[in-house]
């Protein structure tokens, strides 16, 4: 089995806000391991804690309790500069609204990602080619379609080849075609570079491109569906576990 990139043990987060003063937890008791080269999809109703979980893994939010290790780094008593360095070196983020810098061209946006990671900004064009936007380097974000923008954001996240890619609803604003394209890019990255990819999504179509689907509810993991593919088969479009080319193994997680 490949290397464990993300390890969570009984991880919990409780926001210090009035809405949650009753003691309810945004995330609670999450135990999970994500391996290198694996694409994991996190699903669940709105408010179930997916984003909270993702931001904790990404070193943007401190857990209230539990154990968290990403690429062997535990940020238990990490200072902000430590977290910053951790994010810079280990994590590639893709957001729902892709948040490209509006004043910069596609290529410059990618170059910023490269520069932040201490890489040669000259590689930006090559990264854009990898996401199929080799001809759009000079375009400003406002001149690109939603799907194209999201692909630029992915190229930026791939800059410097971070070992972990975290994406929060990256396809929510895209049509089916673009959604699959974006998901395909993330998957290809996982398979070619051994990147651990964790994708939050509502989009059932995206499921097919994953190795594992995790369902969350009320801050807890409900169900983990491991999909095992036969090598060489194209991902199935079928949503159920009986789809051609894949078997599934469902494990129910006790609350």
């Amino acid at each position: 089995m490949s290397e464990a990139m993300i390890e969570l043990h009984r991880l919990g987060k409780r926001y210090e806000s009035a809405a949650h003063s009753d003691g309810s937890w945004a995330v609670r008791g999450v135990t999970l391991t994500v391996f290198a080269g694996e694409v994991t999809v996190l699903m669940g109703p709105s408010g179930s804690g997916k984003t909270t979980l993702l931001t904790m893994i990404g070193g943007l939010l401190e857990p209230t309790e539990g154990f968290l290790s990403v690429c062997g780094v535990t940020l238990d008593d990490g200072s902000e500069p430590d977290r910053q360095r951790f994010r810079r070196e280990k994590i590639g983020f893709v957001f729902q609204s892709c948040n490209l810098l509006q004043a910069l061209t596609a290529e410059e946006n990618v170059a910023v990602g490269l520069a932040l990671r201490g890489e040669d900004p000259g590689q930006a064009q090559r990264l854009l080619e990898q996401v199929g936007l080799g001809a759009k380097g000079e375009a400003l974000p406002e001149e690109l379609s939603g799907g194209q923008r999201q692909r630029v954001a992915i190229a930026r996240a791939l800059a410097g080849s971070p070992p972990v890619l975290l994406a929060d609803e990256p396809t929510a604003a895209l049509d089916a075609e673009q959604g699959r394209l974006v998901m395909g890019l993330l998957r290809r990255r996982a398979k070619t570079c051994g990147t651990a990819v964790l994708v939050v999504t509502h989009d059932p179509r995206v499921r097919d491109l994953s190795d594992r689907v995790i369902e969350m509810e009320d801050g807890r993991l409900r169900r983990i569906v491991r999909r095992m593919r036969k090598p060489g088969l194209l991902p199935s479009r079928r949503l159920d576990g009986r789809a051609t080319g894949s078997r599934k193994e469902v494990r129910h997680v006790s609350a």
Partner: protein
Amino acid sequence: MLSIGWRNMKRDRLRMAVAVCGVVFAVVLVTMEVGMLLGLVESSSLLIDGSRADLWVSTVDVKTFDFASPFEERKKYLLQSVPGVEKVEEFNVSYSVWKLPTGGNANCQVVGLDTRGTLAARLPLVAGRLEDLRNQDAVIIDEGERAKLGNPRIGDCVEIINQKARVVGFTRGMHSFTTTPYIFAELNRAQKYGWVTRQSKANGARMSIYFLVKVAPGYDREQVRRAIEANVPDVEAHTREGFSWRTRKYWLLETGVGLGFLAAALLGLIVGGVIVSQTLYAMTVEKLPEFGVLKAMGASMGELARVVLEQGLACGAIGWVVGLAISVALGAAAGSAGTAVLIPWALVVAVGVLTAILCTGASLVSIVRLRRLEPAAVFRT
């Protein structure tokens, strides 16, 4: 990192224009106020700096060139007997009143000089000759002050405290700090045109305001200065530079004039600073999601601050250049209208440093906001 700040500014022309206007406002106000002050201060000692005298002799405790009291003219003979004194010339300054053609009066300062002497400042004449002052009732005024004196032309007859006078020439750029026009006249005529000299003459003895002294070759200026003070009672002797500085210092520090100018300059800085900082802040708030992304990607506070600073300094640099260009043009216009505005290189550099400080300060509000920015917020859109 790439110059994100500069690109942000370039893409937001309207904001950039507003911020640049803020800087221009501050730069123009500071440059003009200080330049005008420098011009005034320089003019306050114009007649001292231009003189070829080594020493200026006055009554004791003279505060400034313009306000000196008279002393007996015969002290000249005592002065001449001090060892090291080669030459002594009389030089008078006295307030007076010039009658306007409308019937009103204008204050003026009558400067009496020895037209055969060599120690007083050379007058920068644009009409007439210095020798013309030897003619009956002749006076010379500055062309820039003509309007204040009822626009007299060459040959016009005027009246200075009931004495007849005739304009025989014009100087250029001879303005006093007090903005009272100078009236140049031959010593004897100045005696009767000047208020102070005329009053004191009424008491019998002829009175003088200043004596200009040339030190003989081989003598030390400072030693002669001390010797004069030791040998001539109730006078003070100043080196030319010392008297010039005393006069400038008086106007600058002992009156509120310097403070007034600096207060106006400071006001410009504050108003400009607020405009720049508000504009930068509005821009930062608008771009918070972008800054959040950078922060999430692991950009340090220093790198974020650099983006904001770059925006501020870009506006600062443009505003500085534009502001200086405007100031130089305004200064030239003011100069031809008779108000000297000095913009030396040191002022240009100082205003540049001030602009950089202003824009850095204006960026601070934004930087403080970015410090508080939660990078986790980028996921909540």
